[in-house]
């Protein structure tokens, strides 16, 4: 029978390699890839010459991507911490729960109210006609899908505890070696 450890004791044991790898991967997906998307969109809009009509969509997408990046910075840190600790470590459960809880908040910070509003200036499209379409304001609402994602994240929290429990003994054995 191996001796149990406290959270404080568990926090001293981790894998720097796994933590750094997870942090770098998170940084790539949360900062680098979105920046590349903005850069790609800027080029696409410029090459299409659809400046005025596309400006509304482009601005909204850019704002959303920036919110995703800025509010995603804590997720990078938490990704490092959750991967730094191995299965069966109490600290891993703690940081997984914190990371998932923050991810729920993050989701609602990126898409406030579960909505994505877009405005289009279409005044130039029918400029020769007696009838003109001045603008289109579109709001996509996906609150229902976001709530399902929240349920999945809560499920993931339960899963992280199950993983902890089933690997705890193995972890303690390895620690005592």
């Amino acid at each position, binding site marked *: 029978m191996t001796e149990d450890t406290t959270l404080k004791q568990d926090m001293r044991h981790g894998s720097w390699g796994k933590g750094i790898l997870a942090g770098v991967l998170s940084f790539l997906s949360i900062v680098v890839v979105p920046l590349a998307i903005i850069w790609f969109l800027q080029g696409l809009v410029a090459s299409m010459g659809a400046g005025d009509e596309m400006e509304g969509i482009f601005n909204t997408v850019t704002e959303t991507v920036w919110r995703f990046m800025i509010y995603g910075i804590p997720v990078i840190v938490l990704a490092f911490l959750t991967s730094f600790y191995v299965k069966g470590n109490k600290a891993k459960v703690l940081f997984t729960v914190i990371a998932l809880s923050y991810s729920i908040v993050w989701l609602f910070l990126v898409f406030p109210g579960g909505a994505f509003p877009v405005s289009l200036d279409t005044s130039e499209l029918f400029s020769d006609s007696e*009838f003109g379409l001045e603008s*289109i304001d*579109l709001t*996509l609402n*996906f609150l229902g899908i976001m709530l399902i*994602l929240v*349920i*999945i994240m809560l*499920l993931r929290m339960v899963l992280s505890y199950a993983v902890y*429990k089933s690997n705890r003994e193995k972890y303690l054995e390895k620690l005592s070696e």
Partner: protein
Amino acid sequence: MKAFSVIMHAVYALAIAGLILFVALGFIPQNTGEMPLDIKLEAESTYEVSESNGILEYNFSDAVDNHEGPADAYTEAGVKIPGTTIYPDDDASVTAAVTAVKAYAVLHPGVTTVTLKDNDGTVLTQMMIMKESNEITTNMYTEISITNRLRYDLMDIAIGVDQLNDTGTVSYRVAESEPTTIKTGETCSLPVDISINSLNSALIMLTGSGDTMSIYMGFDISGNYLYGLAGASVYATAVFESTTDAPDVDIAATQISITSTEPIEQLPSDLNVTATIGAINVTIVNGPGGFSVEMGDGTVNIVDELQDQYDEGDYTIEIGVSPDTEVIELTQEEYAQMLDLIKQVMEAGGV
């Protein structure tokens, strides 16, 4: 605990895969060669022959110009009416066609509607059909047809039409449809009857920047998808351009006077309304001589008088000159809208 962990992993994986599959399938049409949604704002060019010559001429001309090719008028039985060939940008052919239709209807009383078709038999369409209007209301008609080629039903599709001013700060709902479900693979056509109160309409235009007398409309479409998990609302602002310059506007607490030397194209060309609201007289004229609105005689505070009438629950407007008068009962909402618009006009005029 190991078994519990395995079960939780399976449930988690299934939940993720199920959600991704459910959402992804929702946005891939059954036939990938077609657009997932097809939305059209147009009505077939079928008109009541009892409409006035002016209304028929406007509609014939608009439909043929829009089609950019000649067309003829057909009865509902499919009979081509002689002498009704209309050419784009040809006012003479339009006038002749209307005369021919009217003459044919007199000889054939059973003919109540006519439809414009091109040489191939295709029915012409119009974005907005003008309808016969009375002294105070302008009527228009259109249809919004939506074809759903997605895998799930479109739910609670609701459509509303507003009249706006050019700055978008005043909105007046003129038409609304009941929420409808469009099943997958089906096309649903939602009729939109638009009635615009001429007085409100003129006032709405004046609450804007005052640079134009164009009519601004807002089309409000909303609905849900993915069994209600997601939804969208679209607000499209359209303008019916008027070449009429902004009129001279003279605003005082006891009198509003609007005068333009040119008529407003979108209002009836023979509009001549004399109305009385409480102690306030209103005249609205739109014709070859221009467009004008005269409200109040310079002795009674307009807003106070209308407010008193509103507070008393009297929402009537008397149309015409005694003894040939007709009483129109506005709803409380319509009256409140009118009162609000007049207050905004006063405010804009520095009163």
